[in-house]
């Protein structure tokens, strides 16, 4: 399949074209970049849902049941399951697919034309998400899936990465026995739009839910206290104008703010999945109405653009011999010039070099 065929196929519902496009993008082939450029105008419609949490908490099981629920609601679903690769061999054992229900249940996800499942290795990238996940999400988006679900293993601070691709981030936990160190240290409270306590059948779930809620509310309370302090400094004169301002601000806050709900599930048997699906839809609605969706995407794209620019600049500096990068390195080593001046000189050369003004 050549690029033309792939682009045409992908935009016309050809699954093999989508599969091949993902391969080309994932492996950083030049064709991949070409495809991304050509399908971009078709992206931006899908609701991107991230699901993260420690290994074994039930993420894949939840993805399977959630997909069935959304299919019943008439939505199509693309799924990307990212697993860590082996740091030793560079290989990976990708086993999320086996949790997807097959022929033994009423909904045959494996053969459902409204579902597409792709396993990816994070290839050793710290953060659990493969560097290319964002572009793979876009391919699925352009293909026309209403929802794109990204499952990633979280272990430590790496869950933060899910924010880079998801409009709605879901953190999955299990009932905690003993102390709550795991949850505390992982920075998990910062990243979830929705929290799920799965395996509620194991007992101890209520306690974990209560604990989570108190932590999340505490956060909220902390914000309110900070706000009060802010207003307090403007003196206490009860002025009508200030009061209306305050009330307006409060009303606006209520629209702007989302307090992450905590949902209990037994994913194995599908319990709590409907409520989770409802909450996901509610969050999407909130994101749109409050303008948060646009805000989040703006932050994401600015970071992405900067990354792309940096990547390009680096490769130009290393590959364009007229910029004399190596010579500058040597001169710094020999103490002839300091690194700050050297960097400034190289950038100057780059800006005025012939190669850089050929485009645009």
């Amino acid at each position, binding site marked *: 399949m050549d690029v033309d065929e792939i682009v045409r196929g992908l935009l016309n519902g050809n699954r093999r074209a989508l599969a091949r496009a993902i391969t080309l993008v994932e492996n950083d082939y030049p064709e991949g970049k070409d495809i991304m450029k050509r399908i971009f105008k078709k992206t931006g419609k899908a609701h991107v849902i991230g699901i993260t949490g420690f290994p074994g908490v039930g993420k894949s099981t939840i993805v399977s049941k959630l997909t069935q629920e959304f299919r019943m609601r008439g939505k199509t679903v693309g799924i990307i399951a990212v697993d860590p690769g082996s740091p030793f*061999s560079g*290989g990976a054992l990708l086993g999320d697919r086996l949790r997807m229900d097959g022929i033994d249940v009423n909904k045959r996800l494996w053969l459902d034309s409204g579902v597409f499942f792709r*396993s990816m290795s994070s290839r050793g990238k710290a953060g659990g998400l493969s560097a290319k996940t964002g572009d793979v999400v876009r391919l699925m988006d352009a293909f026309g899936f209403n929802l794109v679900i990204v499952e990633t293993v979280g272990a430590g601070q790496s869950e933060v990465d899910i924010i880079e691709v998801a409009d709605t981030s879901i953190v999955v936990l299990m009932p905690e026995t003993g102390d709550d160190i795991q949850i505390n240290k992982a920075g998990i409270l910062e990243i979830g739009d929705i929290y799920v306590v799965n395996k509620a059948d194991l007992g101890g779930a209520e306690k974990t839910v209560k604990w989570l809620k108190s932590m999340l509310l505490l956060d909220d309370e902390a914000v309110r206290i900070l706000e009060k302090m802010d207003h307090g400094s403007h003196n206490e004169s009860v002025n009508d104008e200030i009061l209306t301002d305050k009330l307006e601000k409060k009303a606006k806050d209520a629209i702007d703010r989302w307090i992450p709900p905590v949902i209990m599930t037994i994913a194995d048997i599908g319990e709590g999945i409907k409520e989770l699906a409802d909450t996901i839809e509610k969050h999407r609605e909130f994101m749109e109405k409050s303008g948060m969706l646009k805000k989040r995407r703006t932050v994401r794209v600015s970071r992405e653009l900067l990354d792309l620019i940096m990547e390009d600049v680096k490769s130009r500096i290393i590959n364009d011999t007229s910029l004399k990068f190596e010579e500058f390195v040597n001169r710094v080593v020999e103490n002839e010039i300091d690194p700050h001046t050297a960097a400034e000189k190289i950038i100057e050369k780059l800006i005025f070099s012939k190669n850089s003004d050929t485009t645009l």
Partner: protein
Amino acid sequence: MKKIRVLVAKIGLDGHDRGAKVVARFLRDAGFEVIYTGLHRTPQEVAMAAIEEDVDVVGISLHSGAHMTLVPKVIKYIKEYGGNPDEMVIVVGGIIPEDDFEELMKMGVDGIFIPGTPIEEIIDFIKKKVAEKKKKTVA
């Protein structure tokens, strides 16, 4: 560099997956990206997974004795779903009588590995075959 992607599939009724899991782990350690399907898949499900995952290799493990009907079905459905089985390396593992080898190869199977085959042999075979097929499809 692109990793070789391998689908390790269990089809049919038999519940023996220890062998398949061991092979899957060895393939990962050889640097392959291995997608494991779990037990009791249908030929259709395996074919669709091979396409969606865009694998270079489809490994089918069977111990049920139904290989002569199930393996050609996988190949047939890959075609039916728009894939090209000739681009993929198709290998079969499990208890396969030698009498069936020739016919399986005629159906489009590239390699057959009976229990006890050294894992290095499987790894080398896959690497060699994937490179061969790639050359052919590029040309």
